[in-house]
């Protein structure tokens, strides 16, 4: 079993490498850009899914963690002149991981005081924190302030981004399948019952925040090293809303749903480009209609492979 899994993993990595070469040589650069952006969206959606969908905690500040990952990793690779190592693929990768780690620390700091808050209150606090993080970056001249940070080594190609997509997916899937995952899910399902069965719900809410902000930070780092330029405007409240929409469309609690949601939300502005300025009017309208008509999203709590299983006897 273990050997099979390892083989599959190697095959996937090889496939990604091959596709990367293929795409870079033959694919329209615009299309490639969109595909890579989809990948970043997938990671963002999967990470938020852990907090909003699996732990049932409504976080509206996810863009902030993405921003932390972006700025920290970009600072390492382009602001602090540390060593040429950080201009290489591996170095950038390390910087991105460090960005993720700092983002997870931010997640811890945000998660901790938010524990006692429910629903709407939590949403507002996380929104506030997201804004505060953004305002901080706006005021730090060393990373460009309002002008933003440019000249970031553009190392995020198809291979690296989608490798991280695979890593994120596997990590989160394994977490959710484990006892720790069940603990997190029980928090969503019924906090009081979970506590009565020995689950420290506060602890697991924080765990959800920390893990999810780590991957949001990764998404941010990949984003920074893809665009080659970031500014505080990339991480406004609207970005958090985008992330929420990704999770909602796919189905809260579903990893495969989050992936699909990430693709759809990234593609939607491209598809709607036809409508020019009405794009941002139609977008929220779609969201409203979605909530009225199919609030459980595409997959609800289920994963795509569970939809094909025979229905449980009722």
């Amino acid at each position, binding site marked *: 079993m273990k050997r099979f899994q390892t083989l599959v993993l190697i095959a996937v990595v090889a496939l990604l490498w091959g596709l990367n070469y293929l795409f870079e040589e033959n694919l329209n650069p615009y299309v490639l850009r969109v595909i890579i952006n989809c990948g970043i969206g997938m990671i963002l959606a999967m990470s938020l899914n852990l907090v909003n969908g699996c732990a049932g905690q409504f976080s509206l500040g996810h863009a902030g963690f993405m921003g932390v990952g972006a700025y920290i990793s970009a600072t390492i690779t382009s602001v602090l002149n540390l060593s040429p190592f950080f201009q290489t693929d591996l170095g950038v990768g390390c910087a991105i991981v460090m960005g993720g780690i700092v983002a997870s620390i931010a997640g811890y700091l945000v998660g901790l005081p938010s524990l006692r808050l429910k629903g709407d209150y939590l949403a507002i606090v996380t929104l506030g924190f997201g804004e505060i993080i953004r305002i901080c970056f706006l005021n730090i001249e060393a990373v460009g302030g309002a002008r933003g940070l440019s000249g970031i080594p553009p190392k995020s190609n198809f291979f690296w981004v989608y490798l991280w997509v695979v890593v994120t997916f596997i990590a989160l899937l394994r977490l959710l399948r484990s006892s720790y995952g069940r603990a997190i899910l029980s928090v969503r399902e019924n906090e009081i019952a979970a506590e009565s*069965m020995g689950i420290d719900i506060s602890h697991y809410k924080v765990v959800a925040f920390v893990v999810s902000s780590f991957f949001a930070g990764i998404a941010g780092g990949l984003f920074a090293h893809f665009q080659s330029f970031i500014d505080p405007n990339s991480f406004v409240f609207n970005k958090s809303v985008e992330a929420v929409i990704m999770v909602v469309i796919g189905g809260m609690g579903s990893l495969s749903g989050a992936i699909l949601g990430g693709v759809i939300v990234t593609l939607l502005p491209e598809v709607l480009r036809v409508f020019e300025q009405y794009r941002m009017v139609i977008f929220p309208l779609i969201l409203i209609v979605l909530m009225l008509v199919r609030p459980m999203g595409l997959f609800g709590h289920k994963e795509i492979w569970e939809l094909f299983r025979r229905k449980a006897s009722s």
Partner: protein
Amino acid sequence: MNQAENIVLGGDFKVEALTISFGGLKAVNGFNLHLKPMELQGLIGPNGAGKTTVFNLITGVYLPDSGTSVLDGKSLIGLNPHQISKAGIARTFQNIRLFADLTVLENVMVSYHMRVGYGYFDIFLRTPRYYRIEQEFRDHAFQLLKVMGLEQRKDDKAKSLPYGDQRRLEIARALATEPKVLLLDEPAAGLNTQEKAALMGTIAEIRNRFKTTILLIEHDMKLVMGICEKITVLDHGEIIAVGTPREIQDNPKVIEAYLGVG
């Protein structure tokens, strides 16, 4: 850790003078109870008497204004519900609180989490230890489901279960925490006569097989009289009688509290 063999001896549990007020109203006043190891006791009283509030006080959902609560010599006052659960007190809920979207098996497996022997490293790398412990959890949970007659439906979502089975699942889940003391809050509510009779048998079996101390809240007098060794009667937050089923049945204060019912 096999539930059937490695027995956790039912605990000695004592509360004294538990009191709590909500907005000026004394919901529970000076409640006393002593559960000896493996005793099966009942807590009865008319609606609104404060029975579930007592459970909530014992399990840490509410913090009492005053009083003591001691399990095998350890004070439980001020502890969080999850700490009290780890100390050895488990409960079911009057309004079913299952993990609706998790499967039957997963519902039970959640209770094993406090004994999980692996960490994040094992999870992400899927070490042999991870597989071994997960299999253990699955096996134990399955055994428990068999005791409660739910093993056939182990992969069904909890919300898809018929009402009677949901109540049994609640009990199974609570048992999975390997408690010294089990609190059952109206486990027979909504069950038909057949199901109630079966439940009576199950509760007695649980006590004998798992050597648990049990405290039962119930409305159904037959159930209570049938299996409880000692009964405490609550009315308006205060104890009005304590005794054997026979004594309680003939107690005029109890009869009055129920207005002739019971």
